[in-house]
Structures are given as C-alpha cells and as structure tokens.
C-alpha cells in the first residue's frame, strides 16, 4: 500500500511538470515556475482574454514570451487599456511582435539579432550585461541585468542598454568580425502611449529559472520585483504567452494542485479508496 502511494506521488509529480521552454509548469532551468510562484504570491491576476482586463488606470499587464500573433481586436483592446493610463510590459525577442507594438501606437521596434558583448556575466557570448540607460523608474536601483541571447530595440526611450563593447554577431562566430561594429544596443525601452507606458524587453530569457539562480543580489530578480510591484494591480497574460504552454494532463494536475478545494477532494477520494481496499482484504482473510 505504501509502495502504491509512493508510486502515485511520483507519477503525480512527474505529471505536474513539463520541460517546455518558458512554461510556468517547468521547474527546470528553462522554465518560469519560480517567477510565477512570486507572481501568485503577489496575487497576480491571470487572464487568457483581453476582455477580462479591468477598467481603471492602475494596472500593469505583463505579456511574457508571446507564442503567437495578436488579433486586431485584441490589439485594439490592449491599446484602450494602455491609453487608459495602464502599463504594458511586453517581453519578447521576436520581430513578429512589432505588429502589436505598432498597433499600440509605439515607435519601438524589435530587431531579432544575435546580440553579443564583451561585457558578459558568463563566459559565453550570449550572456550579455546591460546597464541602466536613463532615469526610468523601472531601472531605479538596479546596477545591471544579465541577458541571455537577447535581441535589441530601436525607438522609444532606452531604459537598459548594453555597453559600447557590444555588437551584433551576424556571422555567428561569437567573435567581433571586420564587418561588425561596436556600439550600444537598447534592450529595454519605454514609450508613452496616451496616458499609459509601454515597456518592451528584448529578451524573455531573463526571467527563466536558470537566470534566477544567478543570485538574489543581481538585477534580474530586482527587475522582476519592480515589474510585479510597479502598479497596484498586476495582471499576467496567459492566452498567448508561452509560459502557459503545457500538455492537458499537466494543466489538470496543476489545476488540482492550485485549488485548495479540489486538493481536499482528491485527498478524501484517495483515503476513501484506500479504506475500501483495506476493508475488502480483511473480509477475504
């Protein structure tokens, strides 16, 4: 019986996690489970449709690593939300999101590129360091952040930028070639749209679990904390985001895990089944 219970626990724990990139159910280095743990502790509102966006101008919506395009009506809803005095933080390194950004009325553009720098945290060209580039409150008190295979931005007001010793490694040889020039690249930019502010972060990988392990004193954790607590209400988009990606079985298991009532119901059922089994065996003997 004990063995069966152990087996059950092992199967459930296996079923409740995935290895999908950016998934909130992925506790490995490439998942975002830790970030979502913080968000849940902060009572973040998870929404799958933009109709659920609350009225009022005191919210921050985080759109982390979108996996698909946004429909025109969704862009319209987001623009209304933004112009209403709210904040949107879009975290993506894909040029596909330029459609959304321009639809929101911003001049920021994402350039999907292999940004590399001599100023790096790990001995790897993708581990680029970025430094505050303006007076934006998002970068207040943060000396630097560590990026992981970032793209770069044009337009808007730079909030964080790489050092002058950075370049786009066009030929992918991880080295500065003749045609590649050194310059600063913006990796986080802000743009005011109506009464709201749009932030674009050109590297969703800064929030994966592996980057959190760098240390609590590093800027990535502080940046996540700033975003979570920047406005009174914190909303997380879960309709398009790759953080919501997971097989259906995992969704069900996690639904049970995250709800106290369902958790209690399942535990009761397990004990009931166990009791029936024990009683039946006793009757047989």
């Amino acid at each position, binding site marked *: 019986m004990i063995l069966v219970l152990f087996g059950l626990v092992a199967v459930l724990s296996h079923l409740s996690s995935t290895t999908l990139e950016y998934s909130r159910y992925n506790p490995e*280095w490439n998942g975002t489970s830790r970030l979502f743990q913080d968000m849940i502790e902060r009572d973040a509102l998870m929404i799958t449709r933009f109709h659920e966006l609350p009225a009022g101008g005191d919210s921050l919506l985080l759109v982390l690593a979108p996996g698909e395009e946004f429909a025109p009506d969704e862009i319209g809803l987001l623009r209304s939300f933004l112009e209403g005095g709210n904040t949107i933080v879009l975290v993506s390194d894909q040029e596909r999101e330029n459609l959304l950004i321009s639809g929101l009325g911003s001049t920021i553009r994402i350039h999907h590129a292999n940004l590399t720098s001599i100023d790096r945290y*790990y001995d790897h060209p*993708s581990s680029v360091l970025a430094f505050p580039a303006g007076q934006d409150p998002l970068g207040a008190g943060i000396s630097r952040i560590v990026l992981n*295979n970032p793209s770069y931005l044009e337009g808007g007001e730079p909030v964080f930028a790489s050092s002058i*010793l950075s370049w786009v490694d066009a030929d992918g040889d991880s080295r500065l070639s003749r045609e590649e020039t*050194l310059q600063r690249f913006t990796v986080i930019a802000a743009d005011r749209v109506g009464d709201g502010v749009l932030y674009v972060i050109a590297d*969703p*990988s800064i929030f*994966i679990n*592996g980057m959190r392990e760098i240390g609590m004193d590093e800027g990535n954790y502080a940046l996540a904390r700033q975003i979570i607590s920047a406005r009174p209400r914190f909303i997380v988009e879960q309709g398009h985001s790759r953080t919501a990606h997971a097989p259906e079985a995992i969704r069900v298991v996690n639904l049970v895990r995250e709800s106290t009532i369902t958790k209690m119901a399942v535990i009761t059922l397990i004990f009931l089944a166990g009791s029936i089994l024990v009683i039946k065996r006793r009757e047989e003997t």
Partner: protein
Amino acid sequence: MRRIPALLASGILILACLLLIGLQAGSPLLYSPLSDPGGGDHANPAAFERVRGDRAAQLLPLISDLLDSPGSLVLNIRSGDFEYAARDLQEYRQVSRNLDSLVINLDMTEGEITEFRKANQQNLAILTELFNGTGRWNELQTLEIRYRDSGDSQMLTTITYEGEALRRRIQDLYRDYLEQDQVMRGTGEKFGLDTTGYAQSVVDFREIVSRIDRDQHEKMTTLQTTVTPGTRPYRLTLGIERQRVSYLDTVNLEGLLWEHRKDHPDEVDLFIDSRKVASIPTKPDGSFSYSHLVEHDRAGTHTVFAAYSGSVFSEIRTFFVETSGTSLELNPPSLHDRRVGFEGVLLAGSTPVRFAPIEILAEGKRAGMAHTGEDGTFSADVKLSPGNHKVNAFFSADTFPLIFSESATFEIFVPEPSPGIAGEDGLLANPLYAAILAASLCASGVGAFLYLRRQRPEIPLPSPVFHLPGENAAKDSDDEDLRLSDDGGPVAGVVPSAGETYAGDTELVGDLSCLFSALRLAVGRRLTLLYPLSLTPRELCAMCRELPIRAAVCRFAKSYERAQYSGVSVPDNERDMIAGAARSAMEGLGGIDH
C-alpha cells in the same frame, strides 16, 4: 514449480541491470548541465563559468593609455630628452602588450578593436624607429662638429650621407604614422575617450621631421659647396635594376668605381637604410654588383648608397618594397593521443613563405606555435583540453613585407579521458572489457547455482515404498532403513491395512506420525518443496489445494489432528478412515512405489 519463473525473471532483471551499468560504466555521468547547454531561445547558465574579473572594464582605460602614450613619447623625442623618451617607450611597449593579451583573452582577434591594436602596433614600431633614428641623428650632429673641427672632410661626407638616409627614413615613418591616425583617433572618439594627446603627437612628429629636413638641407648644401670637383681621387656610381620589388624578389645593385688601381683589388661598402650590408670586391674594370634578397625588409622605401674607403660616396638610390598578400592553408587537424596535429602551407601568391612563424589558435587564443620550412609548409602537435574546439592558424607578418593571413577554422572534439580506461567511450567499446564483463556474469551465474544447491536440504530424498495391507513390509535392507527411524521406532512409509491390529493408542499415535511424515515427504517431492519437513498438517492440506488429492490429504490432516491432539482413544472406524485417506492420497500421488 513456481520458483522457476520467479528465478528466471530475477535473472533477466539482474542481467538487464548489469547491462545498463556496463553501458554507463565507461562514462558514468548521467546528467550534466554541459550536456544540456540550451537551444535557440537561450543558453543554460549552469553550463557556463562566470567570467573571472572585469576584463571588459580594463579595455577602455587601456585604449585611453595607448592614445596618450605617443603624445608624451614624441614630445620627449622632440625636446631631445632621450632618457625620458626611453622610459616612455618602455611604458608604451608594456601597455601595448597588455592590450595584446586582453584582445586575445576577449577573443577579439578581428574587428574594430583589432584594427586599433594593429594600428597601435604599427605606431609602436614607428615610434621605436623614430626614437632610434633621432638618437642616431643627434649622434651625427655631434660627429659633424667633431669632424668639422678636425677638418676630416671624408668622414664629414659619410655622416652627411647617413644623415640623408635617416632623413628619408624619418619622413617615411611620419607618413606611416599619419596612416594610423584615422583608426587611432576614430576608435578613441567612438569610445568617448580624450584624443588630444594623440593629436599633439602628430603635430610634434611633424615638427621633428621639419627640423631634420631643415638641418639636413643645410648640411647637403654645405657639402656641395665645400667639396669641389677634382678634390676626390675616385668617383663612385650606383644603379638599381628594379625600383619596385616584393617578397623574395632580388634587388640587383650595380656600380662602378672609377680610377681605381688595376693591380689593387678594391672593396666597396654597401649601405641599405644606413646599415652596412656588405663589402663588395671590385672587378678588374672597377665594377661591382650585389644582389639583395627582399625577405625581412619592411614594406616601403629603402635607401641605398655605396662608399669606398669611407671617403668616396655614391649617390643615394632608393627602392620600394611592395606588400604582398598571403594565403594560409590548413589541412583538417588530426587527433592522436589527445594531441591535435596541424599541417599546412603558407604562400605569398605562389611563392612559399619560408621560416615564418605560424600561430595555432584555439578559440582565438594561442595554443601553439610552428615555423614554416623552406617549402612554406609547417606542422605542429598541440595538446588541447577535452571538449569541442574551434581551431585555426594565423600568420602575423610583423617582420615580413607581407599581409597577415588566417586559415579556415576547423572544429575538433578532444575526448575526455575515461578514468582507468583511457580513450574508451564505454565499457563495451573494448572487446577485452566486454569479455571481462561476460566472464564475470558467467562466474556470477555459476556462483548463484552453487549457492542455491547448497541451500537445498541435504536429506537424501527417499523413494518411499508403500505397502498395502498383507504385503511384506520389509523384504530388503533398503526397506529396512526406511522403516526404522533413528531411535528404532516406527517407520515411515508403511501404510497399515485397515484390518491390522494395534497394541494400543500410543502405538497408533506413533504410526499416525509416521504416516503423516511419509505423506508429507511424498507431497514435498511432488511439489519440489525446499523444506517439506516444516509443514504442519493444515499447511500440507493448503499446499495440496491445486492437486487432485486435496480432499484425501485434507481428510487425513483433519483426522490426524483430532487423533493426535484430542487426547482420547481413536475408534477403529476412525483409524480405518485415516488409513484409507492416506492410501488414497498416496495412490493419487502416483500409486504404490511412487
């Protein structure tokens, strides 16, 4: 019966486990961040080491220092303070070396920083030569005063010629220095560094050139006015066949010493860039020739003149060494004993470049050195750390009139040495180890078999002989052995007939025990039980649940227990029933003499 499948399953599982362990034994690491370095979205931070020290923070101050250093150095040269200039040059050289190391550490062997580094290296060479040249120029000034005072017109002419060669060389150096200006100042301005010191060095350099030009012009004018025709007993001419040459070309110099004594062979000294390169004997007609191979001459203009006996000078001639491109071909590297073998060839056009240094780079950092032979080929054996490496070869043309070149890059994997099994990827990769594994498995199997045999009871299983009532129970000695117990009591294996009489209940009870023992032994043999003697009557009954004799055995067991433990005498009909049940069971087990 049931034990055989269980043993088989256990055996298969053990073999599977041993096989899995064997497959992993060569490289026992099951997971490492290095085996999961990440994909297109991001890299696994755990797979990489943290950068030690803030290397990047050193770069900009170094560039700043390199922009400032020439200013102080050239200023000291201009003011004639050679002691301070020597110190400046030493510091400049050190800072340049620091930049070279840093650029290699940062894997920036190309691009803007490298352009800056090369320009700086050029500047270092230029300023070193300027320092030496101006030093010699000052010496010539002192010598001129001395020779002028002593009236030694021949030596005066010699040093004036040397001065002229120096002047031309310093002019060339200035031109070269200006060529680096754009890269040096451009880089500095891009990084927001102060370039005024460097700009001042250009101004001071120009000042030095102008002053030397002015002084030399005066000397030449003086020389032409003081040396009158006819005062020199000889005349010396010099000609160059080709004015523009390149790597491994030959500069043919020919000249004629007029009015030499035919009975006395003369010797003419030849100077290239103010350095004496040869003393050439004249032919009977006074002509002489010399072939200079262009190999380690820098690119640019070179001055040549000849002197006879330190008093007769030829006119100053020049030739120009052009820069040639090179190609560095590297064959795919080979791996042997964790050492990587590199072979290749360095050519300037179709001409092999001989005795040239070749750097072997791994990830842009120097991993080894080689030198080309006469035919331009080179080879090197370099020890590299385990892992993937991007390797290539690099020719730095510092002392050649050649452009540097780099070979194609190859990727090579140096395997991790397995502890104790060097060079093996897995245990089964080597037939010897596979054989050892097979032998150990066989030995384990044999050991297990022997162990199981030892665990079986040593009691030789008797072939029980059961006799029906009326038969002679003990005809031979074997039967006797079976019938007699150790204490001479009743025997096992005899089933009394229903009509036989017994002395009393005690005797009957003893017979029943023997009967039970015989039946238990027979059932144990049938079911191949390891310990049949430990079975109780009820267990015996339970063990027979799959056998057709179950009813008879259980009937016997029930009656036996009652007779054995009730404490009352057993009636005849009961005794007959027990004996009948035992007989029936025995017959069911295969009949008499089973």
